[in-house]
């Protein structure tokens, strides 16, 4: 079907970020826009407008740029295959500045000014948490690609969904079986001393315990630290695995100093690629990572057993075999996360079509139709892999990749099962009024 619709031809076309964005004039500009008659397949119906809350500026801009590329590619693919219910899809970008207060303003703007059908996109947890109430108040579905546990915690509201990327609690939990079986039973955690690190501090020990392994030390590093040597003596000598999730500009220094501390005789290293997302794994200072393992949501490097859907996805987004921009090899993508944008947009398509969505008056129906989704099969729409969806907590659960740094590349050595990451739901959004 995909071939017939020319989906795989995407790789042969010059993908322009503007292709899916043209005509997104907003505000008064919309009144001036002469409709979208260029769309031959859906001349009778207006496009479905998706408000894309994007980290265009601010601390999240590196992620925002790749989220934009991926989303634009997904919209082009959806449109090339006939759109949603025969209607074309149009992204309206607003910059949230990676700022929670601005994020909330942007969501309200989408609902009231741009009158988009839904809001989609953002990554940083504090922006999602700051924006979620605005989505609830305006009763506009808000599909995020944040990987935070905040959606699944059911502490946001019924209009917020995360159907395209597994949450961090599930990710961490699903690492435990492999670590315990392959890396070692005695684990020392090194993490930054704030909320991001606390996820790993809190979720890993019970998951490892269940696998017969133990966290024997937890070393919290102050966020403003830029030299780490003085913390390494705290690592117990019997440590078999160092589980590290440092983030920020000092990550390279951290790895370099860890290498200097241990030399060639080191414990196993396990990390989350969040530390080095959008950073070349072959950068000076990172040599010590050779042979170590990382969590990856979706693999950065092309793998020998990549599915046709994965290959098509990579070609459509425009990343080469090393996970960098085609034509700009130094521009390393945020591959481990950005696939969530692609998959979320396909979930939106499915839910809208299931709901018979016509316009903003059907938003409640869209919420219910999304909640009714159960699973997503691996394929064109879900190139990262199969997923299940829990409509009560608005969260999807997928497979995770464990990759080994080998020959300057990340090679997937293990794929977790969906069941590895399942946990007891903490609440039920469907009991909330719409």
């Amino acid at each position, binding site marked *: 079907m995909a071939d017939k619709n020319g989906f795989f031809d995407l790789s042969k076309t010059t993908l322009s970020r503007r292709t899916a964005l043209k005509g997104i004039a907003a505000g008064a500009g919309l009144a001036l826009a002469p409709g979208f008659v260029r769309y031959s397949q859906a001349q009778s119906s207006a496009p479905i407008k998706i408000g894309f809350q994007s980290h265009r500026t601010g601390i999240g801009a590196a992620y925002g740029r790749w989220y934009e590329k991926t989303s634009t590619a997904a919209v082009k693919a959806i449109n090339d295959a006939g759109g949603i219910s025969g209607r074309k899809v149009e992204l309206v970008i607003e910059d949230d500045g990676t700022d929670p207060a601005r994020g909330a303003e942007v969501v309200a703007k989408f609902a009231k000014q741009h009158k988009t059908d839904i809001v989609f996109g953002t990554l940083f947890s*504090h922006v999602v948490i700051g924006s979620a*109430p605005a989505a609830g108040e305006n009763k506009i579905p808000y599909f995020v690609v944040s990987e935070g546990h905040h959606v699944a915690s059911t502490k946001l509201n019924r209009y917020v969904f995360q159907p395209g990327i597994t949450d961090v609690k599930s990710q961490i939990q699903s690492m435990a079986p492999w670590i315990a079986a392959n890396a070692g039973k005695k684990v020392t955690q090194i993490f930054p001393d704030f909320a991001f690190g606390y996820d790993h501090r809190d979720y890993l020990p019970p998951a490892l315990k269940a696998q017969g392994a133990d966290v024997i030390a937890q070393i919290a590093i102050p966020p403003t630290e830029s030299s780490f040597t003085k913390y390494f003596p705290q690592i117990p000598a019997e440590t078999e695995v160092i589980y590290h999730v440092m983030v920020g*500009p000092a990550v390279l220094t951290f790895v370099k100093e860890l290498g200097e501390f241990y030399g060639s005789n080191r414990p196993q290293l396990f990390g989350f690629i969040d530390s080095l997302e959008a950073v070349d794994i072959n950068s000076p200072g990172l040599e010590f990572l050779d042979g170590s393992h990382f969590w990856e949501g979706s693999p950065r490097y092309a793998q020998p057993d990549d599915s046709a859907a994965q290959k098509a996805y990579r070609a459509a987004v425009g990343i080469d075999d090393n996970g960098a921009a085609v034509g700009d090899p130094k521009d390393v993508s945020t591959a481990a996360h950005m696939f969530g944008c692609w998959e979320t947009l396909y979930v939106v398509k499915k839910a809208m079509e299931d709901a018979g969505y016509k316009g903003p008056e059907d938003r409640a129906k869209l919420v219910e139709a999304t909640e009714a989704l159960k699973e997503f099969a691996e394929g064109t729409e879900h190139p990262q892999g199969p997923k299940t969806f829990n409509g009560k907590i608005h969260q999807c659960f997928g497979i995770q990749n464990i990759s080994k740094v080998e020959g300057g590349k990340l090679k997937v050595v293990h794929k977790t099962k969906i069941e590895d990451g399942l946990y007891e739901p903490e609440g039920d959004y469907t009991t909330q009024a719409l």
Partner: protein
Amino acid sequence: MSGRTEGGAKDLDAGGNPLGPHIIAAALALTPLLPTPALAHASDRGHVLLLPTGYYIAGGAFAVAISFLVLALLPPAALDNFLRRRVSLFTLGDSPRAVVSLISFAGFALLIAAGLFGSRDPLSNPLPLVIWTLLWAGFTLLQGVFGDLWSWVNPWYGPWRVISRLVGGRRSGNERSRLPEWLGFWPAFVLFFAFAWFELIDPAPDDPARLAYAAGIYWLVSFIAMLLFGYDDWSRRGEFLTVFFSMVARFAPFERRDGRLSFCWPGARLLAAEPLPVSSTAFLLLALSSVSFDGLSKTFFWLGLSGVNPLEYPGRTALIGIGSIGLVLTFFLLAAVFALAVFLGQRLAGDRHSFGEAAGLLVWSIVPIALAYHIAHYLTVLLVDGQYALVAFSDPFARGWNLFGTANMMVEAGVVAGAESAWWLWNIQAGVIISGHLLAVLVAHGLAWRLHKQASRAALSQLPLTLLMIAYTIFGLWLLATPTAG
């Protein structure tokens, strides 16, 4: 963040309807309690942290110190003669000036329309890209290299000429000034501060519509002021861009005198400058301090002082108060240190000139530093967002046009990414910062000779200012080498 921890999760769990307005506060209160994958990007500053930046900083400081000693030993008159050399190039009239300005005004009007009606994406809309990247980051560079192009391309001169003609032929700015003398350059100072605040502190200066209103209203208010007070007077003392750009242009190695263009040494024209009044001395110091603060405000050091976790950067809105204080504080700190350096220098040399005159003259030596900071600070923005601007020009209203064939051009963000780029960028930035300070020492030396015709006293008077410049070299390089958020 800690101020938002009151309340807590219970508010959300209670009751079946979570959609009340109180939820915003409650949800924000939850922020620190919920798991937070703050995916702080390792960023290219990470590569710089691995470079031997300490040697560069020490070397830079040493170079500035040595330059002072070398200059102290050189005969000032010979140096002065050397710097006064000019190579005459060609005659350059300014008759097309009004036409160029009118074209520029038309472009500006189109940009405002694009800001209002084009894409909402600040990286697709040409207005923020032109204002922040091409004009503020880029054009400043052109002024520093080619001289006062702004007097040609500013969007006020042409329209002012047209209106003046229509309403009665006031052709030049020679009419009697109606802007009170006591106001000095303070209107420009206040407006520059507002501009810096908007750029550095406002939550969304890149928002196309917000910027369109800000820029459009500023144009209109300035235009009215030019009609009221005369073009020349308001341009010289009120319109902050003209004031800033003309100060920067004095650094350029081109001089136009009596319609003839000459080539001179970079910075040489600063030596002939008149002493500035206190208001424009303050303006020049504000220009430097605001760019310095932009760099400082993102450092782990500053964020740590402000109690902000740099890895969980809370966004601009949360930092408005701290940022505003920092912007003001940086200015006062720089102004105080500069004043102290001038004052001590006068005492050392037994200077009989007034403090105001000495400070007003020596402040010209800040221009090369301000320019160097500007280049170093905005270099990466210019390299990446400059590409976005080229793309946006082809389709300013997001209508699918391709006016200049650049609409589908690929933006290569990789140009500033990775260890190799970081090395190149750091070396360029460090080179620019150190060169700027070396030139500043040179210019200050030449200016001091104007105040003290005795070489030894001139050198002695420069000792405190040189120490300031050494300190600022260290500060400038440290800003580019230290960990930053984002």
